[in-house]
């Protein structure tokens, strides 16, 4: 048990070191600055995927995260451009707004299970795109562009984050912010899943009727989970908008929702860190296959199908099946 804990700590330390020290060093040495954008995207997409993973954890297939990323992005963009709020304030607001929407939508749709819930969430992504196209405040297909970079964030005169427009290297800054958010998100998820909350989610996933007979308020728990999930979607979306300084109704669409879901499948539905690994693999896999031109999608999909057949429990199942053996 104790060696297990120590191993865990070493793993976390190595991870943090690679993310915050080794990767920036390697990028500086190789001059591949474009990797920052890629890795920042991975970090943000994995946050949104973490939300989807949590809904999987209560037994719901969520193909609606694109909708919340889009909504979160627009909330931040509108608050920054129209209300002149600091981006750092709009970030949590975007998340909270998404959580609020999730509560409203979740009340009716979370009664659905299996493929029915999946279909409704899929439709949700499309509905939100059409809504953004139609609303006056979102500026239709032209979207919202030239969004200013995030300003400084200071608390009690102490500058926590400098003004991004003053920075020589805002790519690096975005990378750090995205990684910090990702680390916070996954640390929180880990804690959540390993607390009683996680146990109750598992009880829901396995048998909702039995869960309610032992006194679990299943409707409430489902809503809370969906709200957390959508909160993470909104945060991811809002950060993306800050980086690209623009948002359009097509910024997040059905294919993104599907990718968020695939990230979870690929990484492993049983492991908290599954969505992170899944996002990294999928994103890089897709880019690496770019050379193949028109065969990219074909090879990519075949590889995915192959991986899911060989590793139905996700990439992390390789590591953990061994570890479990050692533990017992």
């Amino acid at each position: 048990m104790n060696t297990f804990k120590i191993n865990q700590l070493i793993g976390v330390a190595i991870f943090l070191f690679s993310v915050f020290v080794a990767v920036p060093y390697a990028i500086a040495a190789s001059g591949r600055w474009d990797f920052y954008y890629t890795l920042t995207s991975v970090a943000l997409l994995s946050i949104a995927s973490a939300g989807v993973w949590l809904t999987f954890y209560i037994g719901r297939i969520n193909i609606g995260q694109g909708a919340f990323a889009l909504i979160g992005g627009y909330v931040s963009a509108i608050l920054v451009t129209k209300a002149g709020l600091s981006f750092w304030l709009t970030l949590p607001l975007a998340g909270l707004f998404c959580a609020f929407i999730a509560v409203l939508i979740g009340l009716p749709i979370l009664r659905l299970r299996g493929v029915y819930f999946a279909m409704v969430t899929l439709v949700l992504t499309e509905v939100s795109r059409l809504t953004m196209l139609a609303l006056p405040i979102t500026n239709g297909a032209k979207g919202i562009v030239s969004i200013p970079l995030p300003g400084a964030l200071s608390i009690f005169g102490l500058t926590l984050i400098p003004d991004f427009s003053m920075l020589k290297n805002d790519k690096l800054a975005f990378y750090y912010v995205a990684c910090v958010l990702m680390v916070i998100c996954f640390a929180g998820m880990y804690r959540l899943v390993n607390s009683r909350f996680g146990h109750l989610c598992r009880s829901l996933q396995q048998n909702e009727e039995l869960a309610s007979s032992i006194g679990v308020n299943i409707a409430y728990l489902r809503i809370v989970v969906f709200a957390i999930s959508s909160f993470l979607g909104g945060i991811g979306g809002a950060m993306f908008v800050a980086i690209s300084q623009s948002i359009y109704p097509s910024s997040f669409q059905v294919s993104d929702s599907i990718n968020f879901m695939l990230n979870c499948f690929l990484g492993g539905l049983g492991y908290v860190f599954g969505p992170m690994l899944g996002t990294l693999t999928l994103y890089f896999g897709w880019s690496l296959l770019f050379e193949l031109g028109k065969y990219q999608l074909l090879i990519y999909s075949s590889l995915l199908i192959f991986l899911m057949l060989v590793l139905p429990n996700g990439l992390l199942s390789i590591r953990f099946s061994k570890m479990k053996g050692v533990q017992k």
Partner: protein
Amino acid sequence: MNPLLQVKNVTKKFGGLTANRDVSFDVEEKEILSVIGPNGAGKSTLFKMITSFLSTTSGEVFFKGEKISNLSPHLVARKGVVRTFQETTIFKSMTTHENVIVAQHLRAKATLAGYFFGTKAAREDVKKFSGTADEILEFLGLDDIRDEIASNLPQGHLRALGIAIGLATNPTILLLDEPFAGMNHDETMHTVGLVRKVRDSGVTVLLVEHDMSAVMAISDRIVVLNFGEKIAEGTPKEIQNNEKVIEAYLGSEDITIGI
């Protein structure tokens, strides 16, 4: 004194089909009361209405004088009326021990946020749950399979685990739906012993059962349903000699009755 549980004129209709018609009976504290009747007589439906898994078409159920019908299942469970399922239901991919830990949800003192931040109350809960789970498993003789994944357990153990889950909620009344189904004679007698033990620990037991020898052995009183209606109520002896009951069972030509 008021009876612990009162079923009052309960009727359930599924479209044109009447699963329960005007059923009334009382359950006294710390007794074992069995509801028997041929297949399709409406026993499971009655249990589901008592625990608010189904709403009643008309009629009410009272627990300690409080109405508990047509609420939510988790609220009824909170009051201490807990049901196990006819189809063995457990949390399949958890271990036996984890099943019983999760089932102690209602005993939690800390809030969910408290668990997230690991407050003192939460840490105490976690420790207590693990201990209580061990006690319950030992009580039911399941301590050998503490760390087995539930989906790997044989039928007999699954039923017992179902009872363990029920007990973990700290119920006042435990409703067991066919706890002996699919068991051979020895397993049945073992489980009969467990149910007695549960009652002797102070829990009132309401059970639906098919196995007549078990029912006769275990029950303080019996309620008989036929086509959704209560046709008799009384001690095992009274029921065995009840004309209506004999007629109903002979009519259904159910050879497992053994009366």
